[in-house]
């Protein structure tokens, strides 16, 4: 078969296949956003497009509108999870976003269906330290209403959730695996748990006369400036301790610490390697869950 025609048919089929699980989400004035039917009666969308907690409706590809409630929000990833009472709409086929590479051909799909075509232009690992997730940079156009919709591969399999965030010039997608972790946590715990140790820290230069045991090449570390009473670190870490690593992962700045404290580590005992009184010590601390904070 003709190569271009085959590609054309493949792209159209991918849009058709994926758009069957795409909702229009009415959670803000004017232009509705898009949402993906992630699990039965669970819709994922972009958090910034859900500006209210009440009176949210979603419209399925069949044109039927349903009421929705906010199950949870993960503002760091710009993900909101909505719950429907029921839905007969097809559930999206979600793929493994760890297989996505720069240069892969992708489509952004909006409710309608509407579509946009391009490639993965970057996988921003640096952003992951801030948001606890990689971010896909996209070389395609996210048109108005595309935020919250699926980024799909050439087969129509969902590999991410698109969002322009606050800037219309920003074209990114949150990888499906990160979105999946948020949805899993919400379904299991009813909330998005936040792991924590209970220390306030500041970045410092590792002392030049550091004791043996400090990893070569580590230039900065975190000094403990506060230990919250009743927290996992209370009675174990002390003000003045210099945190070098967590379970062997070097901690050079506060973002490293945050990245190391993923939700799945709650309840796990981690070895915190610190400099205390001129000695390197390994202090076991059990990661706790921070009490629910309104986001």
């Amino acid at each position, binding site marked *: 078969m003709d190569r271009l025609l085959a590609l054309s048919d493949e792209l*159209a089929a991918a849009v058709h296949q994926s758009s069957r699980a795409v909702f229009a989400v009415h959670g803000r004035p004017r232009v509705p956003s898009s949402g993906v039917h992630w699990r039965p009666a669970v819709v994922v969308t972009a958090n910034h497009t859900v500006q209210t907690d009440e009176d949210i409706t979603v419209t399925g590809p069949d044109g039927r509108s349903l009421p929705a409630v906010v199950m949870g929000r993960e503002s760091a990833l710009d993900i909101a999870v909505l719950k429907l009472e029921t839905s007969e709409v097809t559930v999206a086929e979600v793929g493994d976003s760890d297989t996505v590479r720069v240069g892969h051909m992708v489509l952004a799909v909006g409710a309608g269906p509407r579509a946009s075509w391009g490639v993965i232009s970057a996988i921003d690992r640096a952003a992951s330290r801030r948001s606890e997730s990689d971010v896909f940079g996209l070389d395609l156009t996210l048109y108005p209403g595309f935020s919250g919709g699926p980024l799909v591969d050439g087969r129509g399999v969902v590999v991410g959730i698109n969002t322009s965030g606050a800037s219309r010039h920003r074209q990114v997608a949150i990888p499906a695996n990160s979105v999946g972790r948020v949805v899993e946590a919400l379904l299991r715990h009813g909330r998005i748990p936040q792991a924590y140790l209970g220390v306030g820290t500041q970045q410092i230069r590792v002392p030049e006369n550091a004791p043996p045991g400090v990893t070569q090449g580590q230039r900065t570390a975190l000094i403990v400036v506060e230990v919250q009473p009743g927290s996992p670190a209370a009675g174990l870490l002390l003000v003045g301790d210099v945190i070098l690593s967590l379970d062997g992962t070097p901690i050079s700045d506060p973002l490293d610490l945050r990245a190391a404290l993923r939700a799945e580590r709650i309840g796990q005992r981690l070895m915190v390697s610190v400099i205390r009184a001129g000695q390197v010590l390994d202090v076991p601390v059990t990661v706790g869950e921070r009490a629910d904070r309104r986001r």
Partner: protein
Amino acid sequence: MDLDILADSLRRVTVQVARGNVVGAGVVWAPEWVVTNAHVIRHRSVEIGLADGRRAEGLVVAEDREADLALLRVPHLGIPGAVAAEPGRVRVGSLIVAIGHPFGIRGALTRGIVHALGPVTPGGRSWIQGDLKLGPGNSGGPLADAQGHLLGLNAMVAGGLALAIPLGEVSRFVDAAGVCPA
């Protein structure tokens, strides 16, 4: 078919329509007949540039400002008309290509996909909405499918989307003029 071959065949049925210093585009509809956008036309007689470098005079035979369509007669054009796409084959996501003269670059190819089919706002005019880059100079030129078959005439850019007049509407306009052989 590869994109370069497709582009060549589409370029052969794409003409330049001079409009002052700006160049619009047009599509050879049938031997001696060219369709374009009405907004590309300023006078009853226009200069037509062909892909092979020839120049010819075109006369406006029919015009519909509201539909933004115009039909020109270009005697001795000697080029077979563009091949029409199979109706209904194109879907959201289908590959599309455009040829035109954006920003004066003659015969430039751009590619994309169908973004949506139908009105941009409810109740509005029906378009082929393209996720495709167009510029001034694409107006009146062809939008084609993956086989290089004509889907419509590129007419404008709105909100970053390329809007093309669907072929059915162009056909009705030409038929209504009643002068051009089918």
